[in-house]
């Protein structure tokens, strides 16, 4: 699969702390026909280059001193001035899940070592096509996401309807229809869409997860656990889900089950430091060993700053040790990555409540409620606040 000539003029940046690997990847790019290639030996120096000259494609190793590939990725993706950059991670298999989730959505890909030129060429073509020559389906789905994010539900729906005409069997589109229904506040319709997606592709993990999330919001923990468990048994390496599941176990009084699950996962994932630290932090949080939790979660966040679920845990730790300002800063960062994160708004509101800033708390919880109106917890809290202050909401 040769790279189309029109792509060959772009600027490529190769980031790797191993000189041999750096040279090898640059040589591969030269062999593919790319004309402009620069290299950097870690995330920090790469960032300096990105700031001073326009880089279209970044190929970065994950494990590097000073600044890891994931940290670099996070900085770039946080700044919409760099939206034009396509990103390819190069990683060892041990961190696959973390990297796969970091790269999910958008013009990002990852490649597992060892690899040969053909594989890199495939990935480069894929990310550049997404950027410069997206398929109609890709464009429609990207537009859908944009409209959904700006809460323009009518336009979002149009995009999806068009997309489903192109790929009528796609379970992903059904998943999006479910998300759209959620945004409209229709949980029943959403669950139906998710179930239909599972019906078409019984191993479609994201759909199980989505149903679990809906039931969790609705306060039906038993059903939520059932769906999370199914998702977990299909694909057990997802730390975010592991933690969601363990939290539900704690909530339903099955602390032993939660602990066994976290301990086992930690042993299996010891090669992925941030995931392992995250799980440990969660374990400390559940035992109210908050100082210890904070320590490991700060570490986990530093290694993998793009991971929202780590940030959620980190903020919780800050709150529990009595540093609400730090927690608020973390929530703000989450909202910068995903402006529609209802949970972050809700937790932010809870933090303000703990600080006795009632007005700000109401603002945040109301925002959370708008984003997730069917959440039992959020609705109940908002109602309580409204009654207390005799507010009309």
């Amino acid at each position, binding site marked *: 699969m040769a790279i189309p000539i029109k792509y060959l003029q772009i600027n490529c940046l190769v980031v790797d702390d191993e000189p041999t690997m750096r040279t090898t990847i640059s040589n591969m790019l030269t062999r593919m026909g790319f004309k402009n290639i620069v290299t950097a030996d870690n995330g920090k120096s790469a960032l300096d280059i990105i700031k001073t000259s326009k880089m279209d494609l970044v190929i970065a190793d994950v494990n590097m001193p000073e600044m890891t590939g994931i940290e670099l990725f996070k900085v770039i993706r946080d700044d919409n001035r760099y939206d034009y950059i396509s990103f390819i991670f190069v990683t060892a298999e041990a961190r696959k899940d973390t990297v796969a989730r970091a790269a999910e959505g958008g013009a990002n890909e990852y490649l597992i070592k060892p690899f040969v030129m053909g594989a890199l060429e495939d990935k480069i073509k894929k990310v550049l096509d997404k950027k410069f020559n997206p398929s109609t389906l890709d464009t429609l789905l990207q537009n859908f996401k944009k409209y959904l994010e700006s809460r323009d539900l009518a336009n979002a729906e149009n995009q999806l309807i068009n997309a489903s005409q192109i790929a009528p069997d796609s379970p992903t589109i059904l998943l999006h229809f479910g998300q759209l229904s959620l945004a409209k506040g229709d949980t029943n319709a959403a669950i139906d869409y998710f179930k239909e997606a599972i019906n078409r592709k019984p*191993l479609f993990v994201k759909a199980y997860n989505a149903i679990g999330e809906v039931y969790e919001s609705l306060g039906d923990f038993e059903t939520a656990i059932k769906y999370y468990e199914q998702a977990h048994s299909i694909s057990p390496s997802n730390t975010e889900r592991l933690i969601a599941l363990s939290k539900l176990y704690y909530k339903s009084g099955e602390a032993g089950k939660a602990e066994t699950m976290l301990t086992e996962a930690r042993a299996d994932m010891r090669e992925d430091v941030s995931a392992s630290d995250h799980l440990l932090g969660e374990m400390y949080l559940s035992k109210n060993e908050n100082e210890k939790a904070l320590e490991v979660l700060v570490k986990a966040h530093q290694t993998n700053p793009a991971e929202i679920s780590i940030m959620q845990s980190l903020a919780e730790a800050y709150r529990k040790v009595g540093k609400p300002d730090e927690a608020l800063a973390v929530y703000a960062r989450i909202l910068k990555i995903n402006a529609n994160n209802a949970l972050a708004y809700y937790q932010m509101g809870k933090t303000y409540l703990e600080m006795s800033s009632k007005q700000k708390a109401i603002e945040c919880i109301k925002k959370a409620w708008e984003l997730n109106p069917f959440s039992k917890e959020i609705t109940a809290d908002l109602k309580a606040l409204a009654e207390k202050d005799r507010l009309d909401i």
Partner: protein
Amino acid sequence: MTAEKLLYKIENILVDDARPFDDKLHRVVKVLAADFKVKKCSLMLVNHGDLTLEVRAATNPAIIGCKRKLSDVTIATRALIDDAPFYADRKRLSFFRPPDATRYASEHSLSIPLKYQDKKIGVLNFTDRKDKRKFTKQQQTLALEIGKHLAIHLYAAQMRAVLERKVGQFEETVRQLERLDELKTSLTGFIIHDLKGPITTIMANLDMLSYEELTPSQAECVNLALRDVYKMQRMVMNILDVSKLEEGRLRICREEVDIYDLARREIDAFKNILTLKKMTTTLEGAPHVCFVDENLIGRTVSNLLINAIEHSPDHTEIAVRILCDATKEEVRVSISDQGPGIPDPLKERIFDKFFQVEEGKRQSRTTTGLGLTFCKLAVAAHGGRLWVEDAPAGGSTFVFTIPERLV
């Protein structure tokens, strides 16, 4: 007390495992002294380390631990060396004055050698009846009888001590070996893990070289080197993953993967080796998205392909088929070669760890024998099955399934 009763009593003391051994001996000596109505009774054991007789139990505790050299001429050593009871009256005793004593203070003494089969174990001494009379014939016979019983127990106790020491040594050796094995395992792990880096660059650079315009002999060099670096890569990855899969430590990460596309890519990766062996491949099926761990299933296909290539004669064909079950229950991937096939009794065993088909039937090779084991485990981690059957046109067909439903 009758002889039977006395023996029974002593037996009871000796079999009581709750008591320390020396304590038991002490009680035996006391019982014997009482029954024989003597002033003193003692038990001496042969110490093979320094060739002495050592007092282990005595009615007079002060002499416990005292030693007599086996070479010294004393009544006890005499009984032991003669291998017969030694009875001495005052007159006879004066001949056996130990070197460190002026004389025996006793009137009458009886020493019984303790022997188990051919092993001399010690001596049982009785000294001076309280009534100052001679030991009777019955007493001498009884003493001999008791000596026999005592000898058996003492021998057993000695053996037990030896055994316990050996067991202790064994346990220590086992602990040491376990520590060494752990060290070796982690060291091997580190070495194998660290090999991944160099292999990545060697593989990538040789692969790049293979795209250049090379002369046929250059191309052959590059392809041969590539073939073996691929082999090395598979070996390293298989070793690392087989242990993880076995321990259930490898958590699969499912993604949307087009299995047809994946098979095509894996076949493409072997183009150099296929050229080298002048082999061809076919791929049947249609694009089909399933949810699998792309890396694990990709490497399964890759391991099965190389297995087929290495067992096929030159100029033959390998056929890969992707079959989607009509009921949409599972996807089936099969890889057929035109090699010599696998005899029925080995069809299961080839998936065993480190198994190699014997020479002559299928050529033996220099691999770790982990390729098929990895495939089996990787497929099982997805809930699927892997087996081998005879290909209709000769050769073998390896088939694996991936369920498309939650099992």
